[in-house]
C-alpha cells in the first residue's frame, strides 16, 4: 500500500528524474539533428546528474541520522522509565503507610510520634518531587523544560541545603560549616531555587560521603563584580588529577566500588553540571591547595574543592523574571502531536518542531492520536496538555478525516486544534476543512508549517480566556468593560445553559462565577464542570454578595479556586486577582493546571 507519506517522499525526486530524462532525450535529439558539437552539453548534463545524485545522497544521510537519533532517544526513554519505576515502587508503600498513619484514621498517636510522621511524610513527598525533577532534567537537556527563575540569595539556599543535610552529616560524624565573605547585597542571583537546592544538597552529600569521620565540610561564598562563587570543600581522599573533569560524566566514579559502597547512582555530578549550565553558570573540581586547614598529612588525602560560579543578579526586585522566552529560546512552546503513518515524515517534522522549541509526541495512526488525546485530557498527567495535532489525511486503519471527526466529536478533545497535512487542497475536502483549524499542503516547507502552526496557536490563545457567569446583566457589562480595558478576552454567560454551551464551544482558561444564577444553578454548573474531563481542573474565582459557607466552598471548588465576598473586596481587587491568575496561566503554559 502506498501511503501519502511515501508518495510525498518519492514524488519529488522521481518528478525531477522524469524531467531530467526528458531534457536528456530532447537534447540528444537536438544534438543528433543538428549534428553539432554535443560534447559540451553532454558534459553539462553529466555534471547535473552527479549534482542531483549527491544532493539525494545527502538527503538520505540526513534522514538516516535523524532516524538513528530517534532510536537513541527511545533507548534513553526506556532507561529513564525503568529507573523511575524502580524508585516509585518502594515510595508507593512508604507514602501509603505514612499517609494512613499520619491521617489519624487508624487511631491517634502522641504528639512526638505525630511530628516524626509529619517529617517522614513531607520528606517522602520531597523525594517524589526530586525523582520527578531528575526526569525533568532529562527533558531539560533535550531542551524541553523551563526553569522557574527567581531572584534568590545563594547564602539562604546554602543554609537551607545545610539544614537538609545535617542529619546525614551527624550520622557520618562530619561537621558542616558555612561562611560568606561576599557583601550582603552581592549574594543574589537569578535561579530556580528548587534546582539549586538539588545541586547543593547533592554536592554536600558527596562531600560528606567521602569525608573521614571528625573532619569538616565547608561551604564558602565569595563574590566579585559580576560573579558569585560557592565552594564546597571536603577533606576526603581527593580526586586524581586525570579525573577532575570526568567525574562530571554520567556514571563516572573515582573507584568502581564507590557506587555500591557509597550508595550513589553515578548521576549526581552530571545532574549538577546540567542544572548549573542551564543557569548559565559553571562547576568544576579542584584539589585543595597543600597545607590547607585540616588537610591530612599524605598527598592523596588533602581533599577536593567543588567550585560553583553564577552570574550575579543586577535586578533590585525579587519579582519573577518576565521575558523568560528570550532568555531561553528553546523553552517549550507547547506540546504538538505529529500523526503520520510514514515514520520518515514524522521524524523530520518532529525534529523541525523540536528545533523551534516545541515538545513533540509522534503517533503512527489515528487510533493512537485519539487515545493519546483522551488520555492527556482526562489524566492529571505530568506532561502538559496537547497544544495542537498535526494530522495526515491518508492513513491505513482510521483515516485522517475519521480521526478528526472523532476528536471533534468528543468533549474532552474537541478543543484541541488540528492542522491537516495533506497533498489535497482544503477545497477538495470541505468537511475536513470545516472541522480543522489549519491546513498545510504537502510537500511543505519548514517555514510554511511553522507559520500555520503559529497562526493556529495564536488563534487558540485569543479565544475567550475568561468566562464570566453572571446573572445580572448590568454587573456583567461593568465587569467585562473592566477586563476588556486590560486587554483580556472575556465571554459572558447569563444562564447555566449558556455557560455550558460556551464551555463546550471552547474551554476558557478561567471561570468567574457570581453566585447569582436562579435555583442554585451555580452549584449545578460546578457539578457539571467537575464531570468534564477537559474542565474539571479549571481555575475559578467565585464572587458572591453573601458569605459562602465551608460546605458550599467544598461543593464549588474546581481547580485552583478563590472565594471572594463582594462585601469585603472592591471590584478592582477582583479584577487584579483575576488578571494575576490569567498571567500565571499564560506564564505556566507548559505546566498543567491541576
Amino acid at each position, binding site marked *: 500500500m502506498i501511503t501519502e507519506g511515501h508518495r510525498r517522499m518519492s514524488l519529488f525526486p522521481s518528478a525531477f528524474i522524469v524531467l531530467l530524462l526528458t531534457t536528456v532525450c530532447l537534447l540528444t535529439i537536438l544534438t543528433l539533428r543538428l549534428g553539432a558539437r554535443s560534447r559540451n552539453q553532454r558534459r553539462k548534463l553529466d555534471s547535473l546528474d552527479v549534482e542531483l545524485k549527491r544532493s539525494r545522497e545527502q538527503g538520505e544521510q540526513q534522514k538516516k541520522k535523524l532516524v538513528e537519533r530517534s532510536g537513541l532517544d527511545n533507548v534513553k*526513554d526506556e532507561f529513564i*522509565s525503568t529507573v523511575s*519505576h524502580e524508585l*516509585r515502587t518502594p515510595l508507593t508503600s512508604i507514602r501509603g503507610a505514612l499517609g494512613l498513619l499520619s491521617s489519624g*484514621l487508624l487511631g491517634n498517636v502522641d504528639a512526638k510520634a505525630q511530628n516524626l510522621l509529619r517529617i517522614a511524610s513531607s520528606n517522602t513527598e520531597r523525594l517524589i518531587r526530586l525523582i520527578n525533577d531528575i526526569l525533568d532534567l532529562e527533558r531539560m537537556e533535550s531542551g524541553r523544560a523551563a526553569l522557574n527563575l527567581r531572584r534568590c540569595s545563594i547564602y539562604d539556599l546554602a543554609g537551607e541545603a545545610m539544614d537538609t543535610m545535617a542529619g546525614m552529616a551527624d550520622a557520618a560524624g562530619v561537621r558542616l560549616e558555612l561562611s560568606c565573605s561576599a557583601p550582603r547585597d552581592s549574594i543574589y542571583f537569578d535561579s530556580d531555587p528548587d534546582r539549586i537546592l538539588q545541586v547543593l544538597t547533592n554536592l554536600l552529600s558527596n562531600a560528606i560521603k567521602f569525608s573521614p569521620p571528625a573532619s569538616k565540610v565547608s561551604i564558602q561564598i565569595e563574590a566579585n563584580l559580576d560573579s558569585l562563587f560557592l565552594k564546597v570543600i571536603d577533606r576526603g581522599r581527593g580526586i586524581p588529577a586525570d579525573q577532575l573533569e570526568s567525574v562530571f560524566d554520567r556514571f563516572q566514579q573515582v573507584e568502581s566500588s564507590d557506587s555500591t559502597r557509597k550508595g550513589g547512582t553515578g548521576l549526581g555530578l552530571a545532574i549538577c553540571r546540567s542544572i548549573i549550565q542551564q543557569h548559565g553558570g559553571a562547576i568544576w573540581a579542584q584539589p585543595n591547595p597543600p597545607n590547607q586547614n585540616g588537610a591530612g598529612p599524605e598527598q592523596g588525602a588533602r581533599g577536593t574543592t567543588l567550585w560553583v560560579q553564577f552570574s550575579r543578579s543586577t535586578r533590585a526586585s525579587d519579582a519573577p523574571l518576565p521575558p523568560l522566552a528570550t532568555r531561553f529560546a528553546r523553552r517549550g512552546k507547547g506540546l504538538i502531536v505529529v500523526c503520520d503513518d510514514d515514520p520518515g515524515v514524522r521524524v523530520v517534522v518532529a525534529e523541525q518542531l523540536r528545533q523551534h522549541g516545541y515538545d513533540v*509526541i509522534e503517533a503512527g495512526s489515528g487510533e493512537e492520536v485519539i*487515545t493519546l488525546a483522551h488520555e492527556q485530557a482526562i489524566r492529571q*498527567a505530568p506532561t502538559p496538555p496537547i497544544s495542537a495535532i498535526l494530522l495526515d489525511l491518508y492513513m491505513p486503519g482510521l483515516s485522517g478525516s475519521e480521526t478528526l471527526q472523532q476528536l471533534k466529536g468528543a468533549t474532552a478533545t474537541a478543543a484541541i486544534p488540528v492542522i491537516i497535512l495533506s497533498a489535497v487542497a482544503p477545497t477538495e475536502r470541505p468537511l475536513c476543512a470545516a472541522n480543522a483549524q489549519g491546513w498545510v499542503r504537502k510537500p511543505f516547507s519548514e517555514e510554511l508549517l511553522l507559520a500555520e502552526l503559529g497562526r493556529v496557536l495564536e488563534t487558540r490563545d485569543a479565544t475567550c480566556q475568561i468566562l464570566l457567569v453572571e446573572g445580572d446583566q448590568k454587573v456583567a457589562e461593568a465587569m467585562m468593560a473592566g477586563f476588556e480595558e486590560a486587554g483580556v478576552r472575556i465571554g459572558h454567560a447569563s444562564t447555566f445553559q449558556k455557560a455550558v454551551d460556551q464551555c463546550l464551544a471552547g474551554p476558557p482558561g478561567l471561570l468567574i462565577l457570581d453566585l447569582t444564577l436562579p435555583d442554585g444553578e451555580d452549584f449545578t454548573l460546578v457539578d457539571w464542570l467537575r464531570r468534564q474531563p477537559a474542565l474539571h481542573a479549571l481555575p475559578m474565582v467565585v464572587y458572591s454578595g453573601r458569605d459562602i459557607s465551608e460546605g458550599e466552598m467544598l461543593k464549588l471548588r474546581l481547580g485552583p479556586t478563590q472565594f471572594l465576598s463582594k462585601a469585603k473586596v472592591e471590584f478592582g481587587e477582583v479584577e487584579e486577582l483575576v488578571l494575576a491568575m490569567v498571567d500565571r496561566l499564560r506564564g505556566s503554559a507548559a505546566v498543567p493546571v491541576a
Partner: protein
Amino acid sequence: MRRILIIDDEDDIREVAALSLETIAGWEIITAGSGADGIRAAVDFKPGLDAVLLDVMMPGMDGPSTFRLMQQNPAIAGIPVLLLTAKVQGVDRRRFAGLGVAAVLFKPFNPLTLASQISEALGWKD
C-alpha cells in the same frame, strides 16, 4: 459496598492500598499477588466484583497480559480494570493508551484520595 480486587506482586503495596480503600471508603478488598492468581480470584468472586486494580510490572504475566486474558474470559470481561502503576513516563503512558483499560492511576498514590480517584474514574456517585 464496593468490592475491589487488587493485583500487585509487591506485598507491601497490596497491604497499603487495601488498608487505604478499606479505611477511607469502607470497601471490601480482595488481593492477589500475580496475574494468574488475580484472574482466578476474579472468576471466583465474579458476582459483586466492582473493579480490578491492576499493577503493570509483575514477573511472569504482566499487567497488560493479565488484562488481555481477562478480556478474553467472558465471565469476567465486563469488570472495569484500572491500572495502578509506577510507570509514569510519556513512553509508558502511550503504551497503556491503546490497551482499553477503564483508567490509569499512578504510583506513588495518595492513600487518602485513592478511593475517590477510583470512584471518579469509574463515575461512581456513592
